[in-house]
């Protein structure tokens, strides 16, 4: 059963990810991206990582995607106003992306399957265990991230405020 759900979710996430980049209308792109995020959240639940799944939905599908939608609407982008890209740029992008794709595919073909720890037994994704890991093993990275957020906030104020003098 889990296997079928896994394949279904993988199919949906890859399909919607492809639709994100191929959709002509930016609003459709954003909507497909939300779908893609939901299916990835489904993968997290399969791995017994409920907390991560919920945070993923709240932060990405909720906050960030709504922000995205607003920006897309404010910019009033559509297929007609899309700038024409030169053929050369398109070609080089395809070659560059294609080579990365090829390298990863060949590498993963050679990779062997590692026996996976059964997610039912590992309860690492539960809030309790996650908290224990965050506040014991990863205490320093967790705390030092506050510097990052503080500087991002200061930056937002610095760039956004009116100049008084």
């Amino acid at each position, binding site marked *: 059963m889990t296997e079928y759900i896994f394949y279904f979710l993988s199919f949906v996430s890859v399909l919607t990810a492809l639709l994100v980049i191929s959709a002509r209308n930016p609003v459709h792109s954003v909507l497909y991206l939300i779908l893609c995020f939901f299916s990835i959240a489904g993968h997290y639940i399969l791995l017994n990582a409920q907390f991560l799944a919920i945070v993923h939905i709240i932060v990405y599908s909720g906050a960030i995607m709504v922000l995205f939608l607003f920006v897309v609407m404010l910019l009033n982008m559509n297929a007609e106003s899309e700038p024409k890209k030169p053929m050369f740029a398109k070609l080089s992008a395809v070659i560059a992306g294609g080579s990365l794709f090829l390298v990863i595919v060949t*590498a993963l073909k050679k*990779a062997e399957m590692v026996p996976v720890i059964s997610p039912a037994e590992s309860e690492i994704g539960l809030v309790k265990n996650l908290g224990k890991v965050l506040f014991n093993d990863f205490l320093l990275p967790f705390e030092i991230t506050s510097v990052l957020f*503080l500087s991002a906030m200061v930056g937002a104020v610095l760039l956004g405020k009116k100049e008084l003098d």
Partner: protein
Amino acid sequence: MKALILTSVIGIATLFAGVFKMRNNSVWVPLLGLLGVMLTIVADWNTNISWYNNMVRFDNYALAFSGITIAALIFILTISIDHYKGAGNSIADIYGLMVFSVVGAIVMSSFSNLAMLFIGVEILSIPVYILAGSNRRLTSSNESALKYFLMGSFASGILLFGIALVYGATQTLDLDQIALLGPTVQSPMLTIGVLMVLSGFLFKIAAAPFHFWAPDVYEGAPGLVTAFMATIVKTAAFAAFFRLFSTAFVSEESAWFKVLWGITAATLLAGNLTALFQTKMKRLLAYSSIAHAGYMLLAMLTLNKQAGGAILLYAASYTLATIAVFAVMLLVSEAQGSDSLAKFKGLRKNNPFLAVVLAIALFSMAGIPPLAGFFSKYYLFAIALKSNLFYIVIVAIVASIIGAWYYLKSLSMAFLDSDEAPEKIEVGLPTRIVLIACVIGALILGIRPDLILHLI
């Protein structure tokens, strides 16, 4: 660890200096605080303690590179006393962001866990994205910030993808564990992960062919921020790069050595050859910083942990020279309204002091004895030759001859006679102190390079 905590606290204190409207006096908070951090670094010397489950290790390598970035920030802040005269209230925020960015630099030189590495890279980069756009009235500053942000985010994403693949292959983020497990893991996932981490770093240090963002970003950003990027960001990125690839990924050498060899040659040639055709000082310095990254990459190729000393010496001498050139450039471009090379014509006539400082700094960059730049290049080449990197050293020597050409060409501008010579430029006392300190530093490191070379 003391340095890391204290620097974070100084950043917050600097923001408070802005709250209390200290305006131009707010610079003293980070300046005095960072001098205190330097003292803790000296006090911690030779302790080599790892903290919080081996998340960071403050060995001499970490302390030395933290020291260089903090010293560079002290110099930049001192110059800013003159440069930001009469700036508005937001000046304290700018200082605060610079200090926060250096927190990232300290993390990047001391990490021993890949999670810390990524957080360090982000703490270093995000304030710099904002600083690049801090001159909001200028379109070029906005463009520079946006370009840097977009490109930098992609690079961070690739770096993170690489870290994830390395974690997938080795099931650990700890550098010592990866070094231990690396040879036993046969998974191609590790190879790809290492290569992706490599690309992320090559972007951050602006090595060819990942260097196209650098000239535009350097040119658009406000002058002092460009000096910040050219010195602190580059030094920190190299500290992290070398720390990672000389310990954890050294067993994966077969995956990255040839790639890095090619990239080193490309960087040396692309940086120096393109710099020949620049007519603006800032762009010239951008290409020269790309070229200098190429020299430092030589040390990476030696696969030798001892090369850390050579990188440290190079970073120190490069930082001293770069800050001096930027300080002179800021003064001249402010007086002349542009940083094009033609504006330096006849600088010697009315400003002999600035011209001499420029000469010494550019000589040091070009690698002319007895200045620091010569010996730092010399040791890099020597250590590379010891590791049988014969061909790449030849490329590097050719590149440095090309480099000497454009340094001397722009210098000869300053010493030419010209009717449009700049008027006498007022040099404030703080800037004067920094310029003299840089010159003396370049001379001392030139005469006694062993002071730094055998530090770590």
